[in-house]
């Protein structure tokens, strides 16, 4: 069982089905976010359906590019023999 699940996520044969499943999940999550009740939304964004999707995607992109910028342009990333 476990082997088959792991295989589904690894094997190239399942790539198309994997992608379809992934997009379906994304759509379902956003749809569900519109349906759930938001009684005690204290902050502005908590009342916005789909906010978490935007924030999650945005965070991911910001983290990738800010970190890589710091690594390459900011000089944090060095050759492996830097300390030798």
């Amino acid at each position, binding site marked *: 069982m476990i082997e088959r699940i792991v295989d589904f996520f690894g094997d190239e044969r399942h790539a198309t089905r994997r992608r379809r499943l992934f997009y379906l999940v994304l759509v379902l999550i956003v749809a569900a976010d519109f349906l759930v009740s938001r009684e005690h939304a204290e902050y502005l964004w908590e009342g916005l359906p789909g906010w*978490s999707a935007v924030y999650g995607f945005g965070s*991911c992109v910001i983290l990738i590019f800010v970190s*890589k910028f710091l*690594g390459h342009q900011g000089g944090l990333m060095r050759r*492996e023999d830097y300390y030798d």
Partner: protein
Amino acid sequence: MTDFVHPALLFILGAVAIPFLEGVVRKVYLVLIPLLAIFAVLAIEPGSYGATAFIGQEILIAKVDRLSIVFATVFTIMALIGMVYALHLTRAGQHVAAFVYVGSALGVVFAGDYLTLYFFWEGMAFASAYLVFAQGSEKATRAAFRYLMVHVTGGVALLGGILVHGAATGSLLFGPIESNMGPGAYVILAGFLLNAAVPPLNAWLTDAYPEATVTGAVFMSAFTTKTAVYVLARAFPGTELLVWLGTVMALYGVVYAVLENDCRRLLAYHIVSQVGYMVAGVGIGTELAVNGATSHAFAHILYKGLLFMGAGAVIHVTGRRKLTELGGLYKTMPLTVALYMVGAFAISAFPFFSGFVTKSMVVAAAGQDHRALVMLALTMASSGTFLHTGLKLPYYMFFGTDRKLEAREPPRNMLVAMGMAAALCIAIGVFPGPLYALLPYPVDFEPYTGAHVTESLGILMFTALGFVIFLKALDPENTISLDTDWFYRKGARGFMWLAEKPLARYEKAVSDASETAVLPFLHGSARAGLRLDLNGVDGVVNGVARSILNGGGKLRRLQTGVVTHYALAMIAGVIAAIVVFAVVWR
């Protein structure tokens, strides 16, 4: 006192016997002691034990309350899991070190006064350093010395803080420092922050943990930082500084994780990030926040242990640790992949995994305390957590480019240990009740609301979308990242240069000067001294000696060698003494 067995004692005294046991007996013993410790913690009653005095100070070996029980529970559980993971090792050294390490951590958790705390604090540093030394390579030895150097320095600072604070308040009992934040308290705080790996004092962790042995890193990931969280929660709840340090820390670890190529160093940066949630929770200091920090530490120990076990299994089997050299292992190690992913889902706070019911408490506490910025930053950090531990690391380690590595599942005991941790990660996520019941304050928090579930899934799955789209940008690179250890790694080199060049030149100049100017003077004065000695001092000494010799000759004439004379003389002396006594004292 009789019904209290200190769990630290079980481990520390228990460690003595390990080298004398062999084979199966040792294996049984290694599992039995942590099991006994778990029962000892379960049976423990809140109260104070082992009160005594030392150098005029009150000592309280064990102060048991709800906060210490939570930490002791998870420490003993993790000790059991870690021991199972390390059962295949044939040499006793690492087992002994791990026992002392766990015992010391438990000693800190129960310490009722600063001296006991300090004693076990140092025990942890030395025992854990052995787990790095045991790796054996030159790189590991160097990292272990750096690790020791940092912790010994931190320990000395802590001791200094304790003494100053003790002198200021008149008590060394360990408890909340609220009103009187004197200089001593700040130094103590700094010592605690060092062990919590709060930037800029974080580099010892990410430097040393990836160099430790496969099994040693599992222990290290659990104990040092979490005892630091415990002492912070005990002594400094509600300290505003901690909120900001914790928030920065949560993002700091995530940023470095993007750059990292070494699989265990990536995980180590996520310890920094996750401990940030706990430090922020302690800093917020409300009941919900401290509950959140405590429960997150509980969950964190288990899933982080699991992640380190997964990465360790890969290193154990392939001998490789760099993401640029790994890939395609999912075919040969499917069980490891599945168990690792449970840990990854738990740390990312997917619904029905442990992180979901604990991390959200800290975030909710930040929200309740009207700290919108902290809340947003921590949410961003959870996106980063999933991005690295849940997507980047498994993708490049297990999937991605197939490097045709020869691999197989790790030894059975490793899989069993991972299975135990994974089961707990899921159990806590599905049934948070027992964990919530253990927390220091009553819990009025419901993690499973519709909005919370969809919000978490939205954050996580759209992070995955970002990962899929920008996969190429995340490709690991063959580099290392500069962190604050630069200051002492390059600084030490500066010191060595100073010792070799300017100091050596200075020394040469001094010795030259002494040869040309000082030596002749010294020779001259030595000669003068000799003359003085021969004529003046010797004359006096000889004179005294001669007179003693003469006196001795006269005395010798008094000696007859007959015992009765001596006896008579003694009796006469005694009588004389009695007479003198009687006359004077009458």
